[in-house]
């Protein structure tokens, strides 16, 4: 059951003027992005245009686009809500999300740009037998992207009810369908070029909205952070505990603290294995531009997460945890409610206008992220599975691009249908799961491919499937699926997917602590148990990755 379902849409019960304004703003965003997409489609001629946006984006543009792909509704609404309801613990999430970029910057971005072409699997399969490695990498890419997509689309369905005050199941279903149709359009028509511009527009909107809110909140406390924290702690009713770690994560016993470590590990190692992030490095002309675009992204994302701290504590201080939890027990409406309060409160025109602006920004955020995910999975389907696994490399670029477009339609349709079925479930865990799979299945194989000479096909395949199966398997055995009360979760989990009474065999909700080592171990064991050596191709990969010789 989503948090959204439980809450009565009281946010706008007294005034609906923001709804019209919100829809106008959102329609304006959609109109602008559709125009950009059609304009981009006229520039798209080759496969490199479709997959990599022609590789001519500047570092600032790509830095904004990376930020746009990365700052999902989970980071904007979710983390602000976490701060608002659980205080300090929101920081544990946002810091993991930020520090993770150093893995991408130091170990992955430039090397991938230099040695790959369109997808993550280009690098994983570089010195291996193409078919098994590309099949594994393609499956992992699609699984990660679909899980992430489901979390975003189900979240969109729940949010629209809350933000626009439309209740009922049909509103949710229609939201999911509209979001899905738009993302399919962006990807099939605009390809990477169109999708990148959508991300840029969204990132600018999101940053502008966040900056206005942050300055506004701080101005209420004379720009004194300590006063803001004090007011938030007072209003929360939890006092100093609100400003310390532990209200949400690792509160009770040994296992819940290990769960916190597990989450932290998956967050910090997952980013550099997310396929929709990795393919962004191909949209710039060379490795220097890939590096500087990551640095832009680190700056933008870092500032953004610092602002979510102020926005979240501002919501706790000005709106109050009770009012937020009454609206959405997950806290996802903290930022929009804060906007309404800042603008003058419920019933005022200013409140309605600012609420409408932030709601439109939230929708733009969701729409841009799902487009990036659809593009990553359809690129991988076409370039890895269709061209190299099914056709064994005997295709034309034209056939590949046509297949990618059909794949985007099919994947988009599958995501719409799954999201409609999952709309009543609590799927927020899918974001953390996507990071855990990326860290367990993709990152070990990527790092071994780039840095370990002995690595080979069996190792790559074992690493990907081992990490993927263990991460998903552990979640299937976790309290997310089995909600019975036990020493580790004294209250049980009433939102459990399979059973509310059966006790989970594995008490960890986040699989990373176990599945990441399993991913590395499988990749290692698979390698040493196989006789294949790939030294010659490794020489080529290493020279190309470090120097850019022969880069696309």
């Amino acid at each position, binding site marked *: 059951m989503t948090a959204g379902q439980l809450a009565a849409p009281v946010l706008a019960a007294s005034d609906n003027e923001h709804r019209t304004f919100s829809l106008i703003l959102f329609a304006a965003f959609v109109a602008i992005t559709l125009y950009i997409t059609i304009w981009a489609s006229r520039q798209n001629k080759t496969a490199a245009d479709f997959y990599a946006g022609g590789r001519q984006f500047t570092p600032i543009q790509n830095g904004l686009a990376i930020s746009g792909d990365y700052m999902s509704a989970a980071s904007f609404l979710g983390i602000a809500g976490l701060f608002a309801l659980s205080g300090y613990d929101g920081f544990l999430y946002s810091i993991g999300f930020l520090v993770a970029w150093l893995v991408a910057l130091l170990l992955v971005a430039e090397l991938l740009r230099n040695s790959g*072409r369109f997808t993550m699997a280009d690098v994983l399969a570089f010195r291996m037998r193409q078919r098994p490695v590309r099949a594994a990498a393609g499956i992992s890419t699609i699984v990660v992207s679909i899980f992430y997509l489901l979390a975003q689309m189900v979240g969109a369905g729940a949010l629209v009810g809350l933000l626009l005050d439309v209740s009922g199941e049909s509103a949710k279903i229609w939201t999911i369908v509209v979001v899905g149709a738009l993302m399919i359009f962006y990807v099939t028509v605009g390809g990477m070029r169109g999708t990148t511009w959508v991300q840029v527009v969204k990132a600018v909107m999101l940053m502008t909205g966040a900056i206005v809110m942050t300055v506004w909140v701080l101005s209420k406390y004379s720009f004194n952070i300590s006063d803001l924290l004090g007011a938030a702690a007072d209003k929360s009713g939890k006092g100093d505990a609100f400003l310390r770690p*532990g209200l949400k994560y690792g509160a009770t016993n040994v296992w819940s603290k290990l769960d916190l470590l597990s989450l932290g590990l998956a967050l910090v190692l997952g980013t550099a294995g997310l396929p929709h992030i990795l393919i962004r490095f191909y949209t710039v002309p060379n490795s220097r531009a890939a590096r500087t675009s990551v*640095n832009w992204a680190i700056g933008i994302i870092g500032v953004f997460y610092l602002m979510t701290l102020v926005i979240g504590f501002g919501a706790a201080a000005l709106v109050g945890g009770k009012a937020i939890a009454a609206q959405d027990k997950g806290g996802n409406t903290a930022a929009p409610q804060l906007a309404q309060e800042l603008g003058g409160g419920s019933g005022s025109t200013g409140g309605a206008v600012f609420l409408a602006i932030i709601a439109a920004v939230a929708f733009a955020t969701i729409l841009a992220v799902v487009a990036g995910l659809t593009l990553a999975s359809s690129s991988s389907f076409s370039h890895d599975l269709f061209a190299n696994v099914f056709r064994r490399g005997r295709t034309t670029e034209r056939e590949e691009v046509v297949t990618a477009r059909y794949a985007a339609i099919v994947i988009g349709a599958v995501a719409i249908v799954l999201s409609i079925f999952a709309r009543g479930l609590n799927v927020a865990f899918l974001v953390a799961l996507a990071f855990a799979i990326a860290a367990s299945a993709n990152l070990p194989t990527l790092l071994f491919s780039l840095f370990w000479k002995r690595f080979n096909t069996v190792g790559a395949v074992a690493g990907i499937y081992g990490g993927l199966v263990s991460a998903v398997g552990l979640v299937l055995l976790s309290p997310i699926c089995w909600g019975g009360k036990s020493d580790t979760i004294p209250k049980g989990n009433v939102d459990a997917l399979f059973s509310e009474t059966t006790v989970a065999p594995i008490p960890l909700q986040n699989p990373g602590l176990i599945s990441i080592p399993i991913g590395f171990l499988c990749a290692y064991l698979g390698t040493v148990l196989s006789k294949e050596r790939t030294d010659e191709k490794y020489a080529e990969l290493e020279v190309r990755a470090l120097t850019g010789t*022969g880069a696309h």
Partner: protein
Amino acid sequence: MKTESSGPGPAGGGLDNAAYAQLRRSPEFERLRLAFRRFVFPMTAAFLAWYLLYVVLSAYARDFMGHKVAGEINVALVFGLLQFVSTFLIAWAYERYARRRLEPLADGVRANADRIPGKEAG
């Protein structure tokens, strides 16, 4: 091993296997690899350790983290903000190192690659 990498896979870059092996053994390339690894490996170990220290303290040392430094600002908040500062500083330091040290070395290796006779047309 037959590679299926022509076509949709990674292109060969115009050099054959022997040429890449020769480049990889060149002192210029070895200097580049050493300079790269000497920076990124210790730095990765350092920032991961620093981050894990933060997570472990958040899980197990809550009284320490809740200790107030100034006004309502406690150790946990300062520690968290320092993670932002260290991330920005490492990104800046790597950019500087890459421009001053790694890029000139990589340019040298690429210049050698252009002189290799085994280069195919295209």
